[in-house]
């Protein structure tokens, strides 16, 4: 049983992290309803496992890792069979500021989208992202490089068509 103080701290941290959690979840799932579900599940999981967190200062990184795993599992559960999903298209259930950019962003893998989000939006270093994603610094740098290249290419294609 946790104290009220701990509960209040947990809620405060979650509230403060909500924008970051939204971006991370949206980067992976690209859908508002799924984001909400996955993030809520992540919060529930985090609370039940709070005792395993050794130091509170790592809470945000720890929380993002749980959220990332939850979103990946969520995406995995919903992913159509590899050979059969070509006909399905992605739609947004909310207004995005730059539609072309988002369409290009959709061409990235989930891992690449997550790396871009954590690097450009959340200010994590590649090494921190590597730890968070349980991979190597080199792999994250590759992902970012590949992501930038893909985005540039897709945007150029779109502009050429216009």
């Amino acid at each position, binding site marked *: 049983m946790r104290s009220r103080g701990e509960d209040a701290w*947990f809620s405060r941290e979650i509230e403060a992290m909500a924008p970051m959690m939204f971006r991370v979840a949206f980067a992976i799932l690209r859908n508002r309803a799924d984001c909400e579900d996955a993030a809520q599940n992540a919060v529930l999981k985090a609370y039940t496992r709070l005792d395993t967190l050794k130091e509170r200062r790592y809470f945000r990184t720890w929380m993002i890792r749980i959220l990332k795993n939850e979103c990946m599992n969520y995406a995995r*559960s919903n992913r159509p069979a*590899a050979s059969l999903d070509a006909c399905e298209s992605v739609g947004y259930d909310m207004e995005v500021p730059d539609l072309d950019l988002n369409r290009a962003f959709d061409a990235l893998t989930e891992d690449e989208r997550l790396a871009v989000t954590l690097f*450009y939006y959340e200010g994590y270093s590649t090494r921190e992202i590597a730890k968070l994603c*349980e991979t190597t610094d*080199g792999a994250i740098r590759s992902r970012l490089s590949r992501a930038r290249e893909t985005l540039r290419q897709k945007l150029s294609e779109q502009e050429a068509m216009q």
Partner: protein
Amino acid sequence: MNRSFDTRLKKGLFPEMPQSFTDGLLNAARKAEGAQNAQMHDTPVKPKTARRFPVGKVLAGAAAVVLVAACVVIAVFGPGIGRNKHGAVDPAAYNPLRGRWTLTEVEQNGETVDPETIGLQMQLQFSDESVTVSTQTGGAEGQYVYRYAFADNAVELTAESGEIPVLPASGVYNPETNTLRFAGADGDGALIFSRVLNKQTLLGVWKQTRSEHAVDPSPLDGFDYDYLKWEKEQTWEEDAKPQPWYLEFTADGRMYYFLYAPDGGVQGNQSAPYTISGNTLQWSGWTLRYEAETDTICWIFYDRREYYERVPDAVIDDPYRQKISDLRKQYPEYFDLYATPRLKVIVWQMAEGSYSCALVPGSDLRKEAEIGIESRGTTIEEMRMILSTYYEARDCNIEPEQVEVVPFHNPISSYWYEIDEAYTGRLRWLLTGIPFECDDPLYSAPLDSKVDIGGILNLEVSTVCDVDGDGRLETCMLTYGPTSGLFTFTLSVYRNGTAVYRNTFQTAYGYFRFQRMTDGLNLYYYDADSIKTTGRSTAAYAVTIENGAIVLTDEETGETMEYWGLADPHWNMN
């Protein structure tokens, strides 16, 4: 592009966070905290409606039906497959319908009719939310989208009042035959759909590469473990580049499919429930059957069967993984520790040459004696293997320099030894491979002087080093064999638990040990005489990677060691 790319990237990607998102999180937090009034963010469920469609009419006048159905307007109905009332995906509700189906049989008045003979073509494309029905009847084409519900293998199309689906409203999915059968309300016929298989899925040779922990007693388990992994290098027919992928059958009853990207990351994955019954393992309409008589695996799909032989144990043998698996069972308390920013290894000696090690997070503030007394001691080699799991970027990605080695005298032992800088340095070297400079030739590295043959030579069969210079650490393992008459040994290099380089060499009988150098990795060779007499190495080989193969170059002569039988250096990585 007019604007700076980075600026555009930073500003244009994400929509504004809706307030409901924060509210949902706080509700979840309150719910977790046990607040009475907390309610999860909810998505209202719209009632479902369903209408049946007379199959007889389809068969008698499909073209007319298509025209009627062309007026159908589809609205939003109940929740999609696999979603609960909150809109959240229920992981247990995997959707076996997802994918493309084609009408292969029509039953009419108890007789089977080929759809082509009556000029009826129909295809279904199921997603989790909807089904798209494509028809072609008498030259008229149509395409219609419906919502549907799926539970207990029953499919029910849903439509708003006044609309008539082009397909009978009720269907049954048969997981045994992987078919869909839609029956009309009047029972005068049925439409039977079979899954359209992409020929791309029909390829591949499967080999069992690793398996850990037990699922269920079944010959398919092969080993006494709780998940099975089948891996293959697969080339889609239309793709030029091969991509490794594997299936993992886990104890929670799900099968995971992973497609690896060239950089080793997971590029694609999906999961499905599976069941094991006797000799068969099924998932999502696929069946693997173990044929005991021939010891083969039969992969059954749709109307084809292919047989695969079990890969010989010698090829699937994976000493590193096996050893880690054994250690994990033996010393679970030393795995998956919170390793940031460092780990601490407590080492004590109970007799000459007898070391015991315990591993704790660096933040553990207990005294060494307290840890030593309360812990089970591993050998140096075991601890080195355990530490290697922390270097491989799974949970923490620490480096050998972040391992603190702390020797101490165990109070329950009467054996006394001097603990000084040289002693600690040597232990650190033995545990992490970090080079250690010392005047005493017994402890110094590199070693080309008399060495403690019993103590050191047998230990240095594994080490951690960036062998290929890509900035990532790899775990190197040396095993003797696979031949018995001819003297051969095999070097394997693992990254993230996967063998990335492996070569078998042949030379005169002797022993080897690794030595991590400041500029790479060396392999010291001791021939049969030196091992018995001087204890001095007779050759030192630099370990490098060239064209994807391990190359051993004699530091003195510059000659490279022969691969076994002058074989293709990559033969045992296939």
